[in-house]
């Protein structure tokens, strides 16, 4: 169950990225007309299927006042392919030019109410949640017809409300520590 609802402010965070630096909500949102927090990971097939589309959306809109971070909150003990070292190599492999952050305590994922990977939270320049859910309507790119995330970014950058504002996040469950 989401703990940040449409219209709510983002929950603050300060997390270590694969670049070795700490990145905060303020870093992400400052001077931006829209920004997204995407809960992701290294191994989930849904992430792997959707990842290029998420990265593509960033590449399209980064020059228009949009920024994005991926956050991995998965338990690295029971899921070692989701540990920090694998995050570093995965980010390099995908050529990520935005921060990929490690939510080691899982507090950020908990504060957002994130449950799945990938799960998109898109905020406007006031820091209010405007879109929450899936990147589009099908993890199979050949069957996807509704680019929810791309459309939402475009709407928010124009100062408009995305439609739909919320879709069910589809993907692997976040791997919580026991």
């Amino acid at each position, binding site marked *: 169950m989401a703990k940040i609802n449409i219209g709510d402010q983002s929950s603050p965070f300060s997390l270590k990225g694969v670049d070795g630096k700490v990145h905060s909500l303020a870093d992400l949102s400052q001077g931006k007309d829209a920004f997204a927090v995407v809960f992701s990971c290294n191994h989930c097939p849904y992430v792997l*299927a959707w990842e290029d589309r998420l990265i593509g959306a960033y590449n399209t809109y980064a020059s228009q006042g949009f920024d994005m971070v991926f956050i991995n909150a998965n338990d690295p003990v029971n899921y070692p392919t989701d540990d920090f070292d694998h995050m570093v190599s995965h980010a390099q492999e995908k050529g990520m030019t935005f921060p990929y952050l490690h939510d080691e305590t899982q507090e950020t994922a908990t504060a957002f109410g994130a449950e799945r990977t990938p799960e998109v939270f898109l905020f406007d320049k006031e820091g209010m949640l405007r879109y929450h859910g899936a990147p589009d309507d099908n993890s199979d790119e050949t069957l996807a017809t509704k680019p929810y995330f791309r459309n939402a970014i475009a709407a928010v950058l124009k100062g408009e409300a995305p439609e739909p504002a919320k879709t069910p996040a589809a993907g692997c469950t976040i791997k919580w520590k026991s």
Partner: protein
Amino acid sequence: MHIEFHWWEDCPSHEQAYNLLQEALSQTGIQATVERIEVKSHEEAATLRFPGSPTIHINGIDLDPAGAEQNPVGLSCRVYRLPDGRFSPVPALEIITSALQEAQRKEQADNGEN
């Protein structure tokens, strides 16, 4: 022919994969018993060498043995590769049908030898 369908509740792809398996059986006309085996714990996953959900064994052999080796053992969603190289949470229908037909050929060959 005996098929084991291994699945984990928390991975949402298992229903889609089961439907694909049923479609493949229908298309090939192959008769098989399908046993659904829910994997519920890390311990069970370790015992079964479970490479993620869903996993399909046809007469004891993984649908995609090479792909299974690429996935860590445990309670997670299995990563499949489609014929065009894209990642998918479920195997391609044509992969399932090919594996069923190969298993059938092997059965027939074994029966012929006996």
